[in-house]
């Protein structure tokens, strides 16, 4: 059972990590757009 749970947990850790990467890029880009608008 531990291998089963490990596989499912690992899958979601991988997907959530990628979503966090995309979200971080989005926040960085939003800040850059705000900076450009202020200029």
């Amino acid at each position, binding site marked *: 059972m531990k*291998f*089963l749970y*490990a596989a*499912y947990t*690992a*899958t979601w850790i991988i997907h959530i990590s990628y979503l966090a990467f*995309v979200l971080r*890029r989005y926040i960085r880009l939003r800040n850059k757009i705000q900076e*450009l608008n202020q200029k």
Partner: protein
Amino acid sequence: MLRRAFPILGVLTAALLSYGLYEALIGAPIEQSMGEVQRIFYYHAPSAWTAFLLFTVNFVASVVYLIRRSIKADILALVTAEVGVVFCTVVLVTGPLWARPVWGIWWTWDIRLTSTLVLWLIYVSYLMLRRFSSSGQTPLMAAVLAVFGALDVPLVYFSIWFFRTQHPQPVIGGGGSIDPKMLQVALINWAAFLCFAGLVSWSRYRLELLQREVEETEALEALLDSGGAP
């Protein structure tokens, strides 16, 4: 249109993923010889099918880029490679976790496993090239790499037909047999992963498009600041 439908599609995808998870862990019958650990199949195989599909889209987009030099095709190629690598990583992580209790080993250098690892390495190289190369020819070089890289996709899929391997036969279009309920659960999870991959790819596509617009604006601004405007 798609922007307005995004939250609805997001909720539907979450519901489908939850239903797929429930069916995989509780609804599907227990396999006789492997027991509970066989349930890893419901995430392992659909993740592989999703990765293959994404790499195929990457191949088509790369060919379109090579022919038309379309920026949208270039972005689509980048995004599908990125999301494809994520799903391929899931395959390479869940595979050994399934192999250890069933085969008694984490990894073996057989054709299916090795070609999958090579596939992952090719697309990681593709992403590294795109990330770290500052040449104006990067999209062109990446597209050529993607076209050659895509040759590994059929090799991975058909390797278990043509070579002796420890890996089980394919359940779709191959010699392997599977309980209809198990196949149904696998297909539900595949549908859920496809929706999830579609939504993530679409978000990433929009983000990349916006990123390039911002970079263009910054470059133009720098040019104007330096007094280099024509």
